[in-house]
């Protein structure tokens, strides 16, 4: 699934001042590519990622996914797109504290009829990233690394065409971080999933060929 960003700008209104996050960004990510967006903290990496995922509205410009202009889509159409095509990994995980890890993972498909099939599939991945034994715990009972892995599994449960990952390895040890990166690369290679990663870690960015630096 290709991503095209045309002249996108984002600014926030803070009291009577307009805070520009970034301005006139043009970017094209081809179907099956992996792109790393990196830059310093506060450069707007997460904001750009949320705009790509249709989770926020740009001040100007367009985000086009597979020829589909996101600004033209209504709220429910965007939600459908996110559910079926996009896996989003939040920087702060955004797990629901009252639900067990397994319920958080299945949250996107909890109302689906083929939920069980998807759950079985994700269990293999859970085993692979070493979280399977912790799935009956509440997020508060998990380490940051475990929470991050739960968030990653949630993003992957629907076999998305695009994975948007905001600092997906930030809280992981080197071994698990490497595993996650390998999983992303495997998904990309075997299933042709388009992946956009955001990181401020040069080491992580260096592991990928296509990089986009945001900010100075």
């Amino acid at each position, binding site marked *: 699934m290709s991503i095209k960003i045309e002249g996108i700008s984002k600014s926030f209104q803070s009291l009577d001042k307009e805070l520009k996050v970034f301005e006139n960004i043009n970017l094209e990510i081809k179907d099956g590519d992996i792109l790393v967006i990196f830059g310093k903290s506060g450069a707007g990496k997460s904001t750009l990622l949320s705009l790509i*995922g249709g989770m926020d509205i740009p001040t100007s410009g367009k985000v086009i996914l597979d020829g589909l202009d996101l600004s033209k889509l209504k709220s429910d159409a965007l939600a459908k797109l996110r559910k079926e095509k996009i896996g989003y990994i939040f920087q702060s995980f955004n797990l629901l504290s*009252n639900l067990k890890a397994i319920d958080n993972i299945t949250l996107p498909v909890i109302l689906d009829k083929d939920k069980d099939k998807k759950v079985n599939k994700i269990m293999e991945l859970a085993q692979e990233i070493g979280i399977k034994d912790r799935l009956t715990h509440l997020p508060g009972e998990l380490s940051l690394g475990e929470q991050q892995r739960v968030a990653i599994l949630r993003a992957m449960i629907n076999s998305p065409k695009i994975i948007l990952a905001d600092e997906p390895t930030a809280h992981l040890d080197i071994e698990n971080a490497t595993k996650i990166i390998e999983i992303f690369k495997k998904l990309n290679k075997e299933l042709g999933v388009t992946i956009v990663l955001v990181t401020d870690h040069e080491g992580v960015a260096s592991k990928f060929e296509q990089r986009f630096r945001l900010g100075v």
Partner: protein
Amino acid sequence: MSLLSFSIKNILTRPRRSLVSLAGICISIALFISVILILKSAQAAFRKPLQDAGADMIVQLQGEPCVWSIVKLPTDLNPIPIKLVDKMKSIDEVVAVDGALITWAFSIPTKSQNQNTQGAHDNYQSGIPMNEDVHVNEDVHMDGTPLKDMPVQKKGNESKGQPCDSGAPGSFCEVDEQGKHTSTHVSFSPIVVVGVNPEPGELGPIKKSDLKDIQGRYFTKDDNSVVILDKEFARTRNLKLEDSINIGKRLENKVIGIIDSGYDAKIAGAQVFVPLKVAIEMTERGDIVDIVFVKLKGGVDTAAVKQKIKKALANESVTITTSRDYLSSVAGFSLLAQGLMLAIFFIVILISFLFIAKTAFGSVLERSGEVGILRAVGWSNSNIIKLIVIENSILGLFGGLLGSLLGYLASFIYKANLVSALPYYLNPYPPCSQYLVKTLAAPRVGFSLSVFLLTILLAVIIQSLSGLLAIIRILKLTPVNATRKL
């Protein structure tokens, strides 16, 4: 997993939040339902005596206490000539009029009655022993004076059945055929005897509809020395059908019926009922009644009718009681106070529902972050709305249920402490009455399925509507902005 089971899971996995919401609904509904039930039951209790009499108005003439005699009108009640009752019937707004004659009869118990009363109800003063000595019952005089302080006339009045001294109520002398004193009897606990229409309609102390529960039979036109007893009076006196009872100077009146007037206060309720003509004969004051029941046409101006009745009776001191006056008198509510009560009632309802709405609204608004996540992972707005509405409906249902039960409990507790007496002018019983008088208006908090269901429905509607408004507000945020509130 269905939306319903996910909703239940959400409620159960957030016990603190759910309990706070439930407590909010519970308190509001309990407040709402207890106010409704207490007001409803109190009003019903205060209106019941008039309702039971089938009347919209009670007309009485009040004045100075009448002189004592063996059968007298109750304190302060003055006679109303029957011809004036007929005059009331001609008033346009009046549908029906019926009069009754309430009297206090200082009876001469028969020997059998005295025997019967041995071991009867502890609170009942059994009456007068048939001997030559003056017997003074204990306690107080009907006007409230301690009996020990009352002057007691022994002998001396030569007229049979006349008071020995009008200033000494309760004592009278009997003389034999030769004009010689035979005995002196004193009773300070008169029987309340009410003369009623032998052809009952839908008005008065005994209505046609009351007769289905009568034990024995009701009066016929030709009945004379017969009585109908109140069930409780018969029980305390140990009297049965076919027994005899003395009332004033009328001896050996046969008991032909026993009627249960129930627990509630009854206007012109009596221990003994007699045909109206018998009561008239007993009082020896001509064709009179002392209480008139009036049924009006629907929606008429009661104030105007009151004026017409006063005009018909040509007496300004007439006391006319309507259900509203009764409420004022019994509950001590002025019109202003009644208005104030109504205002308080509506304020309570408003506050209750606003409290539910605010709790529900706030509780959903706190979940902006959660809603943001649901949207981020692809939940549609409609599914999120359904989820919130289902969750709030469940909370409303259980909160409403618990609140209703709590409200009923509070009403039952409150009701136990709320008992109101009939106003003195409608109460035919002497103050010294030892009989268990039915003059109390005791509110009953009955279970009303419609109130119960309606309250729960209201709780569900308000709770889910407030949740809906909150979720609509959250859904206006982008998922990213919503998750920032997590």
